[in-house]
């Protein structure tokens, strides 16, 4: 259609024909403007999230004992932020992916060279010496605290890994079997069961901490990784069962019926045909279960006491408790070490994790 009929005179036939070229230019301009606004908005909202992590990383590689200076952080920001901004512009303006890549690489090299020149001299890995030396905390606090309080970080790492892996295994097994059953079988009280699970999930588990502490004490599982493992799995399971039910609901019955007429038993049909359909759900649930256990703090803080039972979050807590204000560098380095596994998992499984909400809604 041509422009709105503001003039009373009937336009001539020729002017009725739209100007395709200017319309296309307008559309392109509009699309570009929309993209820039979106990009600027995303940059802005991600800043408060990225900046602290970036700061933590910078501190862990630059801070020396006694106080912390922000010079390095600001220098680094002064180089990285313009580089990101320039790349955004390049991304918007450059027509071909190849040009974008070349521009990106060019910027990356310049930023890298600038960083090396301006702050390269201040980088060091001494803050990471806790990885290979056990007694650094005692060394820093001198003899003020009793010696031998801190275990090797690798003991805490091993405990955390054991907790997280076992969580993943328990939750994947139980949630997939229970989710399948609830999705496929009609049984008395199914609705009540489902509602009960949702209520359980909404109920803050923290309120149960004293009863749980007492129960663990009575059954002799207090201060053991196994005890925490069972408690965490119990508290987390209702939600994951619900999520898996949603994924199983999305698998058509026909496929299962077909497998059974093809000669498979119900169990074979589940394993060979249904389970591969919910692969994305399994990965998402597994990753979330792992990270949830990895970052757990309140329950392990309450139920694990002996320092050989510490997990990474407790290790970080005691490190910061003992030397905060004395040596920020080590606290930051432990934090980086602690956050690394979660970060890697998120990075590699990102595309599966975004699927979880979809599966969840279907429930």
């Amino acid at each position, binding site marked *: 259609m041509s422009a709105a009929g503001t003039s009373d005179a009937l336009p001539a036939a020729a002017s009725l024909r739209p100007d395709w070229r200017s319309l296309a230019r307008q559309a392109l301009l509009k699309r570009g403007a929309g993209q820039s606004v979106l990009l600027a908005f995303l940059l802005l909202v991600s800043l408060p999230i990225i900046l602290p992590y970036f700061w933590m990383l910078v501190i862990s590689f630059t801070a020396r004992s006694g106080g912390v200076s922000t010079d390095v952080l600001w220098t680094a920001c002064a180089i990285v932020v313009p580089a990101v901004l320039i790349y955004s512009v390049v991304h918007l303006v450059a027509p071909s992916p190849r040009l974008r890549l070349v521009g990106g690489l060019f910027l990356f090299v310049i930023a890298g060279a600038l960083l090396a020149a301006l702050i390269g001299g201040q980088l060091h890995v001494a803050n990471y010496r806790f990885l290979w030396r056990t007694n650094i905390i005692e060394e820093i606090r001198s003899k003020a605290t009793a010696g031998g309080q801190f275990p090797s970080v690798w003991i805490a790492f091993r405990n955390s890994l054991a907790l997280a892996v076992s969580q993943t295994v328990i939750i994947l097994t139980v949630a997939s079997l229970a989710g399948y059953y609830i999705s496929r079988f009609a049984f008395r009280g199914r609705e009540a069961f489902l509602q009960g699970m949702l209520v359980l999930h909404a109920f803050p588990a923290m309120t149960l901490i004293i009863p749980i502490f007492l129960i663990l004490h009575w059954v002799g599982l207090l201060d053991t990784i196994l005890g925490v493992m069972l408690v965490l799995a119990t508290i987390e399971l209702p939600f994951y069962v619900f999520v898996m039910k949603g994924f199983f609901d999305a698998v*058509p019955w*026909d*496929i299962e*019926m*077909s*497998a*059974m*007429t*093809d*000669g*498979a*038993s119900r169990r*074979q049909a589940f394993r*060979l*045909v249904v389970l*591969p*359909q919910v*692969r994305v759900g399994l990965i998402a649930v597994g990753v979330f279960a792992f990270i949830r256990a990895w970052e757990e703090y309140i329950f392990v803080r309450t139920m694990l006491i002996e320092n050989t039972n510490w997990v990474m979050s407790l290790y970080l807590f005691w490190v910061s408790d003992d030397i905060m204000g004395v040596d920020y560098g080590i606290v930051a380095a432990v934090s980086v070490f602690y956050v690394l596994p979660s970060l890697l998992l998120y990075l590699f499984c990102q595309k599966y994790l975004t699927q979880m909400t979809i599966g969840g809604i279907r429930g």
Partner: protein
Amino acid sequence: MARIELKDVRKSWIGATAVERIDLTIEDGAFVAVLGPSGCGKTTTLLMLAGIYSPTAGEIAFDGARVNDVEARDRNVGIVFQSYALYPNMSVLDNIMFPLRFKKVERAQAEARAREIAALVRIDALLDRRPAQLSGGQQQRVALARALVKRPHLLLLDEPLSNLDAALRLSMRTEIRRIQRELGVTTILVTHDQIEATTMADRIVVMNGGRIEQEGTAKDLYERPATLFVAGFVGSPPINLFEGDVQAGTLTVRDAQLRLAGTAQGSVVLGIRPESLKVDPAGTPARLIAAEPMGREVLYTAEGPMGLVRFLEPGAEARHREGESVTLTFPPQEALIFDKASGQRLEARIAA
């Protein structure tokens, strides 16, 4: 290949009955269509034959042996679902070979058989693909190959063509018929489409409300429908139905009166197929309301003494215009008379 019998089979769930009563025998190698509207129990019957559901009462027998308690996986039944139900995580070849996994067939031999059957349904060029990379018609063929690869006693087709476009449906109809003839496998086709049923099957079973209304050939169903339901369901465009009343051998439908031969009394329904009605100067006058050219013929709607009536006339163009008056007749032996209360067809005829 097997002879299939259903004896007094029922299926109900708490608060719902899907199949009231089915008595049916299907001869070895026959191609039977089960025709009926949605929710008439035809798919439930199919799933009972496959062994997915077990009947609440009655007996299902293959070659005279009761199979009610035989598990689905042991029945050796091939089934093609409306959704095709291919396994998305497997290649086409693995899909077709899947049933052989459970039959202790050696892999090399299984693959040879899968390739053979793939050639039969003409998908041998697609064996490495995933189901998601196939068109609807190709998926359909894969599903058919998977159902046939285990040499089933019985092939069940659940609305196999309803997800295909019109041209593909036409060619798949011929294809399925060809393959069924070639293999001689006993086949049951479930459909709500009468064209599918009449073109593919030797015999047709019309179901309604969980019961069999009539069983017979396409000709039987069309010319001698047992019930009002069958008369209304079979035939396109649908039959004209007029409610009337019989007193002393005379049928009164609104302003029209017709003499009857044979016994009938009380409320009846008169059925006249649109293709029976002819324009004839000696007929009853009616005013045309609509003319709809359908290609080979024109469908007219007219208002006559019995009410609204539809009739067909051959030819691509409408010869009468809307608002025009025409005179209509029909051969009296082609009119059908049903008892209104029971829906059963009466032997009474319109007297010439």
